[in-house]
């Protein structure tokens, strides 16, 4: 080593400099895009919710009026169920629940289930799934109208035995070559209805944050 700094030290400094530049760049871009990304995410959720419940049918801030139900055994899933509550002039209109069907063919199927104040399904949509393309994916609205068949159903229409696919003696169609996927969705929607019926009052009450419910 002469009076000059050690080559390893110089290399380290250089790498550090590049890391610093990269980090600075990322921080800058993050600063620029952060707001927009948050907005896009909000917009997407709202779009999905409004597909079930038209924006004109409620007047509250749907995205802000939400609660999370943790450890609800009736949903058979560890993840908290997010519930958005729609109101008109302060009166309950509907709830939109993000529920997870744990027993899809390829794992979880995430659904939005919309239930109006009287306990009737106003719509169901799939948010995310990993079902087999071509076999299980008719649960998407883009692929078939199957999921629209839930609209107008309730706990009394059909009765409990009817809440199953036809192969199991219920009244919902299965798909050619795929019974597990529709079975999981039917069960999840039915569970959401059961939960709604049992907890209707608390679901709409102002603050149920973090409350344990079953």
């Amino acid at each position: 080593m002469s009076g000059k700094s050690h080559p390893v030290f110089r290399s380290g400094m250089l790498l550090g400099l590049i890391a610093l530049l990269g980090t600075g760049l990322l921080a800058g871009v993050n600063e620029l895009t952060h707001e927009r990304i948050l907005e896009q995410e909000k917009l997407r959720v709202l779009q999905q919710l409004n597909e079930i419940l038209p924006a004109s049918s409620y007047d509250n801030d749907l995205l802000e009026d939400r609660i999370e139900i943790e450890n609800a055994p009736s949903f058979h899933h560890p993840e908290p169920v997010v519930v958005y509550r729609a109101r008109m002039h302060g009166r309950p209109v509907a709830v939109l629940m993000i529920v997870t069907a744990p027993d899809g063919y390829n794992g979880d199927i995430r659904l939005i289930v919309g239930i109006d104040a009287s306990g009737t399904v106003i719509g169901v949509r799939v948010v995310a799934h990993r079902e087999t393309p071509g076999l299980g994916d008719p649960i998407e609205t883009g692929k078939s109208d199957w999921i629209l068949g839930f609209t107008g159903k309730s706990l009394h229409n059909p009765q409990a035995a009817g809440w199953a696919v036809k192969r199991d003696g219920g009244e919902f169609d299965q798909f050619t070559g795929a019974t597990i996927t529709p079975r999981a969705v039917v069960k999840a929607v039915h569970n959401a209805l059961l939960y709604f019926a049992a907890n209707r009052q608390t679901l709409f009450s102002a603050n149920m944050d973090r409350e344990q419910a079953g």
Partner: protein
Amino acid sequence: MKPGQLKQILAEGAWRQNTGLVVLLGLCPLLAVTGTVINGLALGLATMLTLMVSNLSVSLLRGLLKPDIRIPAFVLIIASVVTVIELLMHAFFSDLYRVLGIFIPLIVTNCAIIGRAEAFASRNAPLPSLVDGFATGLGFCLTLVLLGALRELTGHGTLLAGASMLFGESGRGLTLTIIPNHPGFLLAILPPGAFFGLALLIAARNAWQARKPAQTVAPLIVDRHET
């Protein structure tokens, strides 16, 4: 830089050393996202942009980078570039961002990018390096689009489905239904279809090359530096 050299770099990157069909690098995203033309095109463009920016940066820094730290430096540069692209895509093409998902950040691990940084950009001037990034990216992007078209056409009977994710609302009209009432061909959509499709494309390219006997077969890896 002479125009002849530029043309040669373009031909090398896009055709003779095509990342997807000849060098067979970056196959993981290539096979995974090519279910449709739009997915392929989007990932292809993102990869092309990454290649251009990383090649340019590496070339500009090539005087400073000692051999012993060049690889970590490349990785730092590429990772930064990809993350910037990921953030921008999330903000401005959020539908597409969700479709491509994990494969955007995984561009970092596409060997083609670090390969070009090492084999070309670290020993050439900025302009040729930029052109090389463009050419390599173009070749990769075209392969992705071709494979996507093959699979989408046989699997769904459409082309350019979901164009609105890339081109906005005006893109809705771009979707072409080539085969009406197509029952859907599952094999083409599922992962095996990607392998079959890629095999067909490579075979087609080789058959094309074989018709021109004058040209020698391109070496598999261009690395005049080591080994």
